């Protein structure tokens, strides 16, 4: 039981009044609220990633009919000059979930550069359709060494039988390093013949 000296409980605020206060506060902050897509692009290893968590929740909860809009937002963020390695990795991981042929040209440019190829393959390896397969095949001509071996792995993961001629050439190409020739040879064992 409360003693006579106990402080009085605070007055009960009506729910409507509380909403009103919160709403006003939110509206006052909106002008300064940073763009979460830009923050995702500028993500740093070890930095606050709470906005990326919110974006990820949005991505996984979005219905397929709304994926094109989401994909466009991700692609726009990916094109920002301030996009970091951590940001690119995150955005490509989100594109892996909702990406389509529309996003392939941007990813195709990234997969041809060994510095960004791993992130791009995160999305290209699972985006359905022939466009993504073609982007990975085309990347073989631009990449070398380990990055090329990685692209071969993505091609096999997609079971892209159209890559057999290119892989056969790589297997036979004495100028290629062993890592590429060996991976191409094993890829040909895994890929169906038709």
């Amino acid at each position: 039981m409360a003693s006579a000296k106990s402080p009085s409980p605070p007055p009960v605020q009506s729910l409507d009044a509380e909403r009103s206060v919160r709403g006003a506060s939110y509206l006052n902050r909106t002008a300064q609220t940073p763009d979460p897509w830009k923050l995702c692009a500028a993500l740093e290893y070890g930095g606050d990633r709470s906005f990326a968590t919110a974006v990820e929740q949005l991505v996984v909860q979005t219905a397929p009919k709304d994926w094109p809009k989401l994909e466009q937002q991700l692609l726009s963020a990916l094109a920002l000059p301030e996009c970091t390695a951590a940001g690119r990795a995150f955005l490509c991981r989100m594109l892996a979930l909702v990406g389509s042929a529309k996003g392939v040209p941007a990813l195709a440019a990234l997969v041809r550069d060994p510095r960004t190829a791993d992130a791009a393959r995160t999305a290209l390896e699972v985006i359905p359709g022939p466009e993504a397969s073609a982007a990975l095949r085309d990347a073989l001509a631009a990449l070398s060494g380990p990055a090329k071996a990685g692209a071969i792995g993505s091609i096999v993961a997609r079971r892209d039988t159209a890559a057999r001629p290119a892989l056969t050439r790589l297997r036979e190409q004495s100028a290629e390093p062993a890592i590429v020739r060996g991976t191409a040879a094993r890829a040909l064992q895994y890929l169906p013949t038709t």
Partner: protein
Amino acid sequence: MNPPASASPIAASASPAALTRRRFLQRSSAATAVVAAPQVVTTKLFGQSAPSNRINLGLIGAGNIGVAHLDTLLGLKDTVRVLGVCDVDRERRESAAERINQEYGGKDCRPYADFRELNRRREIDAVLICTPDHWHALNALDAIRQGKDLYIEKPLTLTIAEGRALVEEARKHGRVVQHGTWQRSMKRFHDLVEFVRSGGLGQLQYVECLIGANNRHVGATWQPEPVPEGLDWDMWLGPAPWRPYTFNGCHYNFRFIADNASGQMTNLGAHCLDIGQWVLDADRSGPVEIEGHGDYPSSGLFTTPTRIDVTFRYASGVPMYCRTDLAVSGNNTSRFFGERGWLDIGYSKMSASDPNLLREMQAPNKRVKVPSSKNHYDDFFAAMRTRQRTIADAETAHRTTTVCNLGQIAMALGRKLRWDPAKEEFIGDEMANRLRSRPMRAPWSLVADLA
């Protein structure tokens, strides 16, 4: 169309040869990989104390679990010899190799910085894989292709696609695989399975798996740190996405980082869900519907759920729940509820709604019989010699690990998912299907030939 989860197998290259013991172990082809139930024969029957009959092992990963295995293996000198230890952390591999050589009184055990070198040492018959989860599939595939049998820690693989590729490769090369789900070799779990499947609880109503949460919080942000002397950080990351080194993101704690593992869902879940799978007679199938919720840290280094709550529904109609329970922290337990009461069986305790149920459970001569193993190592060594299946073979391991991964995907997506265990694909959820595999950082892949 989505790319398929599984990879095509490559043809087994083994050929019949003179069956010396060593050659038999190393070159057994798919034709010699029989499919009968395991027969547990104590290793003493094989006369293995002669050096030529000992099994030679290589240890890949000399961290907490690897060293725990070593503690046991060094006591089995008449049965096995550990000839190689691989770890990307120089201090770990060198101290383990030194300890082994001191124990054996020789210099036969060599430290390796690269698992591929260990896998190519011809005298080694089998490898124990105790690396972080993101390495399991590649360590295993390379070993299988080099003709080694595997004892592989749980979870079998990081993804569903990796698991299927491993199963197919082991089958084609006729390799023996023992998964580290050692609860299958404890009598109480064997008794439980036969009892419940024989109707001992009456109609089974549901299964509940409780796992602890030790995903401790290490802050909302973290700082990249210099890589410690002797640690090959690039090789530690291997196929996982690149990130800078930080102390809390490496040994042990990797399991709480989604790029490297799937938290307690696959760590402790691999044990208790495995027993659930066994009881439900689902070692060649799995659930058909999964719904889950997880509490994910919104920021910070750790990215796997701190609390999990997943429901798996099987075609039989029996649900299996998997939940975080802080009361079992660091442990796990499986509970089985039926018409006659309940049984709560963990590796360190067991209880029941009625003591008579426990007595009945432990009684012999049940109507339904399942394969048994009295010791997980002995079962593995016996299977290596006889080319029989182990108690936790590759397909069983893959199915259990798939259940864990289905739970992880259901929590990540936060919606009900339907699963086709035969095709190993989600029904009507393209996003979920894209999560069955994960691209690997170059040059690694399931077909990488980097030897």
